[in-house]
Structures are given as structure tokens and as C-alpha cells.
């Protein structure tokens, strides 16, 4: 019996989420009494996965898979899952994994449980806890199929070191030539940390008064190596790109630290950022609803507080480097 884990990579190295996912797969495998088989598509060094619990690594190196294509990737993973006799396949909550998981589930005749936040409550029958109602509640789902696909919620499990063999072997796949969707161009900032991957997110709301003041947000974010985000009205007014809109109708945030500046904390905003572990709120209004959802709060004017905070953090970083 094995747990298959899709370990995502970028530029020939495994992403951090791949290590988290391998740790999680190890936890599931322990509960089931099975082994962890990682699948790496044009990926990194198999030994890296051994440190987190991969017993085997199926290495797929195929030119067709050089750029991501949901259909081909799902087909490759399904072939690997069948070859490994996997009972459970674990995928992440990245945009690509969420794209391919439903295709993979259909291919395997498997139930798919996305946004799972913890190890299974039981593995026979498979019962997993996931977020629903955009983080306003959890559901315990019982999966009824023999094979299952579990999508781990962002930053939900963390890294757990395990020592395993990570025995690597090449795995060949057969793919359809025409996959129906051809990428013509990619527009991606490579020098900036994304909201999806960021450990720290600095987010600005209407309280910042206009796009010309975003240097406050950016300077603080740069100091912390953070991604920048914003509330919905800020993106609707075109102060910031839509891709920075976080909340119930925007992107979810599950960072370790979320700093909200000049954001009131409307229910739709909170729903999307609730999975962040520690929340800091800076707002002039002591009655702002966000303080009720915060861990640390400062009642103050962003234009006064944020530049001073950035300076102090720079010193802190220099002293702790």
C-alpha cells in the first residue's frame, strides 16, 4: 500500500511545498501502514525528498512535460499512481495542483478532498478535515472510493523531518500528442515572492488613500521578504493589480504572518486571510472590526507608524543577520 505524493518543482529544484507535502504523505502512510512514493516531474534531487520521508521517488523526465499542462500532468500522475498501486494521492493547493487534481480524480475514479488541514481522522474509511465556507468552518468528509486524492491546504502541516531511502527510479509515461491547451505566453514576475508562496504578506487597504502611497507597503514588504496584497476596493479602483486582491472573492492567504494596514476587516476580507497564523493590524480606528481577528494591534496612522516600523525592522534584521 502506498501514498503517492506529487512533488512540485521549479527550475529543477523542489519547491518548499513539495517537502511539506512529502512530510504529510509520510504521516498518512504511517497511519495506513504503507510507504511514501514521490513523483517528480522534471524535478530536483531525489535525496531532498528522503529527508522528509519519501521511500521511493519515481522520476519522470519527459520533454512534453517541460511546461505545465494540466491534462498531461494529470495523465502522468495517474499512470504513476496506477503503477505504484497507490491508495491515496497527495497534491498541494498551488494553482497548478488545483487545476490538475479534478482531472486526476476522474482518471483514477477517486474521490477528491481539497483544502485538507490535518492528517486523516481515520484511513479506513478515509476521513479528512477540510476548510469550507471560505475558512469560516471546517467539514469532516468521509471519502467513499477505494482510491482517494487529498489536496493539502496551504501551509497547513509544516515541515517534518523523517529519514527515508528516497530510492530513485526513472518512470516512463505515455502521453497524447495534442493536449488541447497550448500556452502561448507566460507573464510572471520572477523577482518577487508570490502571495501563494510567501511566509509573510503585507497588505494595504483603502486607508492608504491612493496608489501613490504604496511605497509604504512595498518598503515594509521588501524589508521582510514579504509579498504585497490588498483589499478588494483597492484592486477594484485600480490602485493595485487584481492579482493582489485577497479575501473571499480574491486569493486566499495562509502565510505565517499577515500585516494588514488601513484595512477595516470586513467579513469577506477576513474569510480569505483567516488561515494566516499571526495577524498584525494597523488602523487609525480603534473600533475597526479587524482588531477582533488580530493577534497584535496598533491603533495609529499608517503614514506615521509604517515608516518607523520599517526602519526598526531594518535595524532588527541587520542585528540578527
Amino acid at each position, binding site marked *: 500500500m502506498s501514498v503517492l505524493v506529487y512533488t512540485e518543482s521549479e527550475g529543477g529544484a523542489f519547491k518548499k511545498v513539495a517537502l511539506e507535502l512529502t512530510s504529510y504523505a509520510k504521516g498518512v502512510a504511517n497511519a495506513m501502514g504503507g510507504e511514501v512514493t514521490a513523483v517528480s516531474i522534471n524535478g530536483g534531487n531525489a535525496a531532498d525528498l528522503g529527508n522528509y520521508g519519501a521511500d521511493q521517488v519515481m522520476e519522470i523526465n519527459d520533454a512534453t512535460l517541460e511546461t505545465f499542462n494540466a491534462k498531461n500532468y494529470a495523465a502522468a500522475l495517474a499512470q504513476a499512481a496506477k503503477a505504484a498501486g497507490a491508495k491515496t494521492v497527495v497534491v498541494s493547493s498551488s494553482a497548478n495542483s488545483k487545476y490538475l487534481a479534478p482531472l486526476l480524480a476522474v482518471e483514477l475514479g477517486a474521490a477528491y478532498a481539497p483544502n485538507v488541514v490535518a492528517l486523516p481522522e481515520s484511513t479506513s474509511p478515509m476521513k479528512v478535515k477540510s476548510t469550507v465556507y471560505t475558512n469560516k468552518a471546517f*467539514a469532516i468528509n468521509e471519502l467513499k472510493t477505494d482510491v482517494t486524492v487529498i489536496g493539502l491546504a496551504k501551509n497547513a502541516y509544516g515541515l517534518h523531518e523523517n529519514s527515508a531511502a528516497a530510492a530513485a527510479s526513472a518512470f516512463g509515461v505515455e502521453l497524447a500528442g495534442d493536449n488541447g491547451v497550448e500556452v502561448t505566453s507566460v507573464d510572471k514576475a520572477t523577482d518577487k515572492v508570490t502571495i501563494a508562496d510567501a511566509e509573510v504578506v503585507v497588505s494595504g487597504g483603502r486607508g492608504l488613500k491612493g496608489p501613490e502611497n504604496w511605497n509604504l507597503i512595498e518598503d515594509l514588504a521588501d524589508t521582510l521578504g514579504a509579498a504585497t496584497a490588498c483589499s478588494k476596493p483597492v484592486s477594484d479602483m485600480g490602485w493595485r493589480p487584481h492579482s493582489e486582491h485577497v479575501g473571499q472573492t480574491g486569493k486566499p492567504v495562509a502565510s505565517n504572518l499577515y500585516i494588514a494596514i488601513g484595512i477595516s476587516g470586513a467579513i469577506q476580507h477576513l474569510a480569505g486571510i483567516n488561515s494566516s497564523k499571526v495577524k498584525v493590524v494597523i488602523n487609525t480606528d480603534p473600533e475597526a472590526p479587524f*482588531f477582533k481577528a488580530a493577534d*497584535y494591534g496598533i491603533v495609529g496612522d499608517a503614514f506615521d507608524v509604517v515608516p518607523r516600523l520599517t526602519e526598526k525592522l531594518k535595524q532588527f534584521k541587520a542585528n540578527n543577520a
Partner: protein
Amino acid sequence: MKILVCISHVPDTTSKINFTDNDTQFDTNGVQFVINPNDEFGLTRAMWFKEKQGATVHVANVGDASAEPTLRKALAIGADEAIRVDAPATDGYFVAKQLTKVAQDGGYDLIIAGRESIDYNGGMVPGMMAAMLGANFVNTCINLEVDGSDATAVREIDGGKESVKTSLPLVIGGQKGLVEESDLRIPNMRGIMMARKKPLHVVAADAAEAHAATAAFEKPAPKGAVTMVDPENLDQLIELLHNEAKVI
């Protein structure tokens, strides 16, 4: 072009989420239901195809009769016909299976669903439909153009976006960006009157077993009190983030 827009009937974003029956059922008491926001962007884009390219637009929902006002709203916005598959939406797989049957029976060229519904957030219905139909699929779609049987789309990826070329039949997992917030339409009196006369077909569900069942719901544990920091004492905040929260 024949378009099917899949409409999920969900609690309004301001809803308080509570459960009844020993935490096994969603408490609909005092909850207002709306068209799922991601679906509304898709529906509005479909209206554009109707007005500019002469497309026919049908909407479909899997659910009980309580979803009909939501379908009527979609008709009032401008959809031509509505279909309700009369069955509880037990899980994403079951819903995808039902909508796939609707799509096959109706012979649609383009199927627009939302990236996810804001109740279960499963995000699996469009992808599963595409796989079951053998159609092309673009998820987290923020732009869509159709020319004959060719389509171009833009997909949001982590940290950016990607342009793709594809063809019909096509399934889209849509979201904001397909149209702008300001393009969304509030039905006017004329639309509402016309919607009353438009067909709303109720069809029986196709036999299918759900893949998953919700055994119980839980609410998040209440949060501890916030620690307030004096704006003149930012060193304290840094100290707390470093030593107490351990996040910097």
C-alpha cells in the same frame, strides 16, 4: 455558439455560518442566497457572447426548488433558459456528473463554471466535467475570447498569468477578470418580467453515487484576545513577533 453557465446557489458573502442537527446541516435561518460570485462573472461574460456574437445562453443548477429564485435571477440578467437537476448537491463529483449529463444532452460548445463555489470551495466541478466530457479545460480563467471554434484565454497562475490557445468544446473555471466588477448587472424590471416567462426545466437526476459525504461540520475555535501595542513602542511589536509569535 451554445453556452451553458453552471450556477451554484450559495449563501451571501456576509452570512454568518452556523450548523444545526448536531452540526450536520448548514443553518439556512436568516441566510440570503445568491449566485456564486465566480459564476456571476462567467454569466456576465456569457451575456457579452450573446449580445456580440449571437450566442444562446442556458444556465443550470443541481439542487432543490429553493435554488429557483437564483436561476430566475440568472434569467433576468439575460440567460435564455434554465435547467434545474432536481437532486441535493451532495458532493462535487455528483454535481459534476449531473452537469455533464446536462451538457451532453444540450450539446453545448462552451461551458462556463466558477473556479470554486464559496460554500464548499471544492473547485472540482469544472475540471471533473471537462474530464468526463473529454473537453478542453482552462481553470482560474480571467479572460476568454472565442472565434469560431478557436478560443484564447488567460489563466491566473501563482505569481502571474499565462495566455493559452485552445478550442471548443471547452470548459472554463472562471473568476473575476472574465469581466470587471463594474460590468456585473443588476436585473431591471423588464428583465425580471421576461424571466417569469422563460423556460425553467426541472429534470430528474441521473443515477450516480456520491464520492464523499460530510459527516459533520465544525466551527473554528474562538480566537484569543488581541494584544495591543502602543504606536510609540514599536520595539515591543518586534520583540513580540520575534520571541512570542516567532514569525520574524
